[in-house]
């Protein structure tokens, strides 16, 4: 066990820092709790920044240069995430394209589909991911959007919901049911669907902050060429499971980094609001600090087994823990403002309404990507080895 990495890793970090200093736009350096706009469109600076990261091999460092990387080792990938997460620098506003679609196309797609990956990772093509449906949330395998073979095509009918950036996307990585007779998990396939295909209707869906990154997507007899099938027919469930294994070892880094930034700022806020001598406030913040620091240590402990190729049960806890911690941190930021806790007027609430806004956004973190309830079920059976209910 040791606290610091070696000189080679330091050199790698140095290269990254030099790149950041030379190229990162001011908008990326703000260390914000969220990025995104009220209308859900992707700002110009964010598009340019993602392309710059790709062109310099800093988008997904583990990938080769032609895919926006530099063949980085797992440890170098972690250092990358440390440095980016620690400074609160986003890579992209739309996670789905580089983190889900790109890697899945590379792993499961044919040559023509693999060729779509660089633009997905560089952000030149905006992708949405058609997963959730009105009756398929946590029970994703219950999805019912149908794709019926018809000659050289599939005819797709159904509805997706909570589809991020659908209104701005050129393509959809869409999970569809291709066998209604088979067991739920066995009749699912993935299609690449152009969003300008006739029969697709996108209705923006505003979330509780009022912004409209989400959408409902309706498919009415949408004709998709058979060659757009990704992987084998009825083997789509595998694609939901596998993506971005090399990033998973460090996904927690951003969660703990933003928690730590929030704690530092909460201390500052308590001082500005005259609450720094309040023993209850002090103890609560110390507890939150204990949690953030120990989770950070847990993430690194998990990385040690991950990097050696074994599974890392520690990381199963991290999404659950960091998403719940962040909700409590932002809510604490509201409470520190006393009567102003629910004020969103940027001229009257602390830090221009940061805490109230970040708290609202953080409410999605315990739902998206697997609810906390599902995470607890998964940890109970797969990590603790408890019998299934």
């Amino acid at each position, binding site marked *: 066990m040791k606290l610091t990495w070696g000189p080679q890793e330091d050199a790698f970090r140095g290269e990254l820092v030099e790149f950041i200093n030379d190229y990162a736009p001011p908008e990326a350096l703000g260390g914000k709790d969220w990025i995104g706009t009220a209308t859900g469109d992707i700002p110009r600076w964010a598009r340019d920044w993602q392309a710059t990261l790709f062109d310099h091999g800093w988008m997904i460092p583990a990938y080769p240069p032609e895919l926006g990387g530099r063949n980085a080792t797992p440890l170098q990938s972690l250092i990358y995430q440390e440095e980016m997460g620690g400074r609160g620098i986003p890579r992209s506003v739309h996670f789905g394209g580089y983190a889900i679609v790109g890697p899945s196309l590379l792993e499961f797609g044919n040559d023509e589909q693999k060729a779509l990956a660089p633009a997905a990772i560089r952000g030149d093509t905006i992708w949405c991911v058609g997963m959730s449906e009105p009756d398929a949330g946590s029970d994703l395998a219950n999805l019912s959007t149908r794709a019926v073979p018809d000659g050289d095509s599939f005819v797709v009918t159904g509805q997706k919901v909570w589809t991020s950036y659908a209104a701005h996307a050129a393509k959809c990585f869409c999970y569809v049911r291709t066998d209604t007779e088979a067991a739920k998990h066995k009749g699912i396939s993935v299609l690449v669907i152009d969003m300008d295909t006739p029969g697709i209707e996108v209705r923006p869906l505003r979330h509780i902050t009022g912004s409209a990154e989400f959408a409902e997507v309706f498919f009415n007899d949408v004709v998709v060429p058979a060659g757009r099938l990704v992987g084998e027919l009825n083997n789509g469930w595998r694609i939901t499971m596998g993506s971005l294994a090399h990033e998973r070892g460090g996904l927690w880094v951003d969660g703990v980094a933003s928690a730590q930034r929030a704690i530092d700022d909460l201390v500052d806020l308590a001082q500005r609001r005259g609450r720094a001598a309040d023993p209850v406030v002090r103890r609560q913040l110390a507890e939150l600090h204990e949690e953030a620091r120990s989770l950070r240590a847990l993430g690194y402990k998990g990385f040690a087994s991950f990097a050696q190729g074994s599974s890392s049960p520690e990381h199963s806890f991290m999404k659950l823990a960091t998403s719940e911690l962040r909700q409590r941190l932002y809510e604490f930021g509201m409470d520190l403002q006393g009567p102003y806790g629910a004020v969103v007027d940027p001229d009257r609430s602390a830090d221009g309404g940061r805490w109230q806004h970040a708290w609202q956004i953080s409410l999605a973190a315990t739902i998206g990507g697997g609810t906390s309830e599902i995470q607890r079920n998964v940890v109970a059976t797969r990590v*603790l*080895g408890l*019998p299934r209910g």
Partner: protein
Amino acid sequence: MDFTLSDEQEMLRDTARALFTKEFPSTLLRDAAYDVTDAGPAEARAVFDAHLRDWFALGDPGVGAGGAAAAGGSSLVDLCLFLEESGTAVVDGPLWSSAALCLPLLRAIGHPDADAVAAGELTGTVALAGADGHWVPNTEPTKCFVPDAASVDRVAFVSAAGAGAGGGAEVVVADAARLTMREVATLDRSRAVFEVAVPADGADSSPIAADALTDVLERATVALAAELVGAARWLREATLAYVGERVQFGRPVGSFQGLQWMLVDAALVHERATAAVYYAAMCIDADDPDRHSAVHVAKAAAGSAARRWAKDGLQAHGGIGYTWEHDLHLRLRRAYAADHLLGDTDWHHDRLADLIF
């Protein structure tokens, strides 16, 4: 930071695990401390002497800056690996007090008995807290919460130095056999604590600087936290095994979601406490500036984890967990007593607040 264990550390952990499983069954502890038999205490002492004295030098800070860890010797991480395993078994005897508390203090003042403690020839403990129980140097004539005072060879008394000493303290090392002491019963009979009168005969004292004393207490605190996560681990393993076997309503109770979620949350607290303990040990081994914060985080998290598993583990066991015969209460007692020793969770949170505000 890299949590990968070296081959030697893996071997140390495996050796310790085998040692405590094989040589320290709960009957040994029960006969010596709970259902005391005629031969029990002597047998516990014999097993302690035969198997644990060889390990006192683990984490020996040695002499000079950086100590043994810098010189390639054993580290506080090593000592924590060993004490995590001893914590699963609950050891009756001055292991932690000799290796993690007394030895670093004797090293810090360059006391001639340090080598004998490191070699396992002498056992020792430290007397520091006053009547309020906090481990803050004071001038009180009786020191409280002195662990294992009746079963060690040496007691090192730490008292506040006079005014103008720059917050430093002075240390008097005494032969335990000639001291006046009173045992104060706690929940945990396996680590007795005592009120011990500071010897009045004006024995030679050695000065210790405030930061050197902080170093000693931080080592002892992290080591105690390692023991606590070990106790929590035993409770976790026993509980998970039990709820997987115990059938009610025709199914294992561990398949019920209400119980599963409670245990998942407790497991998370234990996981992060364990990581926090080794992070703090690494910080001390490297004398990293984050060490003070890391120590408070580690002890607060470890105390919370052990208490959480004691309570939730007992609840998950149902009636059997509330019985004297079940070994669960041996760890429950250790969890609560060790959490309150050297600063409980609240105390460490308050010190942490002092650092972050």
